[in-house]
């Protein structure tokens, strides 16, 4: 009991195990790490997409260059990771109902992983 009184958390919160899940630092570092990667990858993509043309061939020829295909793969990998973390924070900020929150967090992960998979699949198909 004396241990419970030393904490600023209510006894009930302590029993329910609410509070830090000890994932905060990892989330913070992951968000910043992917941000730094995107500082380099996004301009590359923007310059590359400049070659985007009404004809499919020009876009595909740009993606077929190994370095560009890799850059797209890396950029969308970093982007989907970064946006999964970002959307997680938005959901946790605004959605307080536990079941709704949990469903949205899972959908968020599914959606970002799906986007990454489609992106990787497409780059491989175009390069092959």
């Amino acid at each position, binding site marked *: 009991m004396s241990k419970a009184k030393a904490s600023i958390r*209510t006894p*009930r*919160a302590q029993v329910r195990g*609410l509070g830090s899940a000890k994932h905060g630092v990892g989330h913070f570092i992951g968000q*910043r790490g992917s*941000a*730094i990667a*995107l*500082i380099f990858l*996004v301009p590359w993509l*923007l310059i590359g*997409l*400049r070659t*985007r*043309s*009404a*004809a*499919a*061939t020009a*876009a*595909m020829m740009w*993606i077929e260059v190994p370095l560009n295909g890799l850059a*797209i793969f890396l950029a*969308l990998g970093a*982007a*989907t990771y970064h*946006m999964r973390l*970002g*959307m997680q924070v*938005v959901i946790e900020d605004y959605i*307080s109902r536990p079941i709704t929150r949990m469903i949205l967090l899972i959908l968020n992960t599914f*959606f970002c992983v799906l*986007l990454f998979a*489609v*992106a990787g*699949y*497409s*780059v491989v*198909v*175009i390069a092959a």
Partner: protein
Amino acid sequence: MAQIGTGEQRPLSPHLQVWRWHVTMLGSILHRATGFANYVGVALIVLWLFAAAMGPGRYAQYEQIAAHPITQIILFGFTFSIVYHLLNGVRHLFLDAGAGYKPAFASMTAWIVLGLSLIGAAAIWLLAGLVPGVAIGGGA
């Protein structure tokens, strides 16, 4: 979660309407809003990539939808969103490191990021030849 169970009266933070609007506040709100927009925009980029992988027919379909004036407005908004989130993200990395918190300086950098993003988005569209009737240095 303070309301649940304990019955304690916990202090609430001041609500939105008691704040005077200022540019660092706008910058912060825009950062989250553009992050949200980029979430949708990345899905569009992946769709574009997938359309290219599915062959010229699908790609032509995608291009047709993308060429519609309403889509063009959305895509320009997405361009601004990307540039803003990128530049303000760099600003945030400095803030995370504890630099740039003096009010006047923080306001100035927020204004600069906002201005550069508008200029940057316009420049990207001009250079990529996406503005109808304007052709600078090739593009589509």
